[in-house]
């Protein structure tokens, strides 16, 4: 059983918001801190803002996919500031659990999850371990995921894990097809929903996830495998950059107003 835990979430939008809402909905005491470069989408009502992780937390999430430096800093902070019994569930789509384990002193408490926007619409969370992860940590992680009303599936520690990798490759292919003028984005979406029964079209799904997130996973796959198969469609990269510059403008405007 998971002891009645306080949960702390560090990371980026919209993952922090999605996980905070899920944990709050299941009655957990949720504290969060957004990365400074992340889009400020606010936090779900009931989430407490926290400047730093402390010994008071027993479950910690690190939810950063797009900024490896910040992710590393968050993981090191969590390892340094959390009590010895606390476990860390860290998104491991763009950096493997094994690599993250090499950053910390208590690597046995680290479990990978597939935190990716819109994935919590489903009923399952993927888990992965490094060779250092101990069994008790994995068992606690499984219990905690169950307490969130989700099933868990343990997969090997691999960039993109299962669902985000398949989904990002579908979105990438749709972007290549759009870029090459094969069809309009909305027609590609219609075709995939009616022709193969997909729950959502790849371009509309990409928009909901955010192309910055999709690009981060694809770039990490490309880097990890070194294969052209995973190169990012230039159109997808453009859309990701457009989003990033929108966030930046938004932040600059906000700062000017202060």
């Amino acid at each position: 059983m998971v002891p009645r835990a306080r949960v702390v979430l560090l990371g980026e939008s919209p993952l922090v918001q999605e996980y905070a809402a899920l944990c709050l909905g299941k009655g957990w005491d949720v504290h969060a801190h957004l990365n400074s470069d992340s889009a400020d989408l606010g936090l779900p009502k009931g989430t407490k803002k926290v400047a730093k992780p402390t010994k008071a937390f027993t479950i910690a999430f690190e939810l950063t996919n797009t900024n490896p430096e910040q992710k590393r800093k968050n993981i090191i902070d969590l390892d340094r500031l959390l009590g010895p019994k606390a476990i860390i569930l860290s998104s491991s789509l763009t950096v493997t659990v094994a690599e993250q384990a090499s950053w910390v002193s208590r690597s046995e408490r680290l479990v990978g999850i597939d935190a990716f926007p819109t994935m919590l619409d489903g009923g399952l969370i993927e888990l992965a371990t490094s060779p250092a992860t101990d069994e008790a940590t994995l068992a606690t992680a499984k219990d905690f995921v169950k307490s969130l009303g989700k099933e868990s599936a343990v997969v090997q520690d691999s960039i993109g894990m299962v669902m985000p990798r398949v989904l990002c490759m579908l979105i990438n292919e749709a972007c290549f097809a759009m870029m090459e003028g094969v069809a309009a984005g909305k027609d590609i979406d219609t075709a995939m929903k009616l022709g193969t029964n997909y729950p959502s079209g790849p371009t509309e799904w990409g928009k909901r996830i955010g192309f910055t997130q999709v690009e981060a996973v694809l770039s990490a796959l490309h880097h990890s495998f070194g294969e052209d198969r995973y190169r990012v469609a230039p159109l997808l990269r453009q859309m990701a950059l457009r989003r990033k510059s929108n966030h930046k403008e938004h932040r600059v405007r906000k700062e000017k107003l202060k």
Partner: protein
Amino acid sequence: MIRTIGVIGSGTMGGGIAHVASAAGLDVVLHDVSSEALKVAMERIKSDLRRDVEKGRITTTQATEIMARIHPRKAFNDLGEAEFIVEAAVENLNVKREIFKKLDAIVAPEAVLATNTSSLSITAIASLTKTPESVVGMHFFNPPPVMKLVEIVRGAQTSGATIKTATALALALGKVPVICKDTPGFIVNRVARPFYGEALRLLGEGVASVEVIDKIVKTEGGFKMGPFELMDLIGIDINYAVTRSVYEQFFHEPRFRPHPIQQRMVEAGTLGRKTGKGFYTYNK
């Protein structure tokens, strides 16, 4: 507005297209070189209609009328009266080009010639006709009476008017047309490749088992079927052939590279549901 359409080939696709067109109120000339195949197709349409009557979707009178509007014809020249032709013969470029060459001689010059190919180039099929601007791809999905999607494929020389007529016909048949350029796999058979390809790679790399990948894709991703269940349903050989065709037509683009796991299964004859064994085992 089109009144009479000709359908060439009375297999599952041709028969299904004839059924859909007749149900929409068009007269259909259904041609096949084999009178046996025509008989089988008419029987199948009849039994599908009987089921529709039983389920209360149509009346007995409507079923009779739908049957009466389909005219099975062995003589190729009987297709001459059709204003719109949908070719659904075997998926072989030479056969299709031969058919289109023959069509030139019998149909009115303004007739639209559509092909239901799923993998061949519309441009190549059109190239032997005198009117390549009237040739268009019209890719229905199996089974045509159920599946709503039709890919309208624009060949290199297809005219805007031809696209318009084909799109209007698809709408008149109660379908949802999407327009795409004549490129390997069109939309669906291309964009769906990573669904199978990445699943096979994940399996090959040992990231997760067949069962776990299918479960994740369904439970977490919300897909109706997992990639391995779906490959078993489609047939491993068919799925592998489509992948190879897209891969080769894209001159070995690595995103479409087939996987040895699938090749071995084809070699072993474990082709999915139809053989009782694929990624899963089935009781026949």
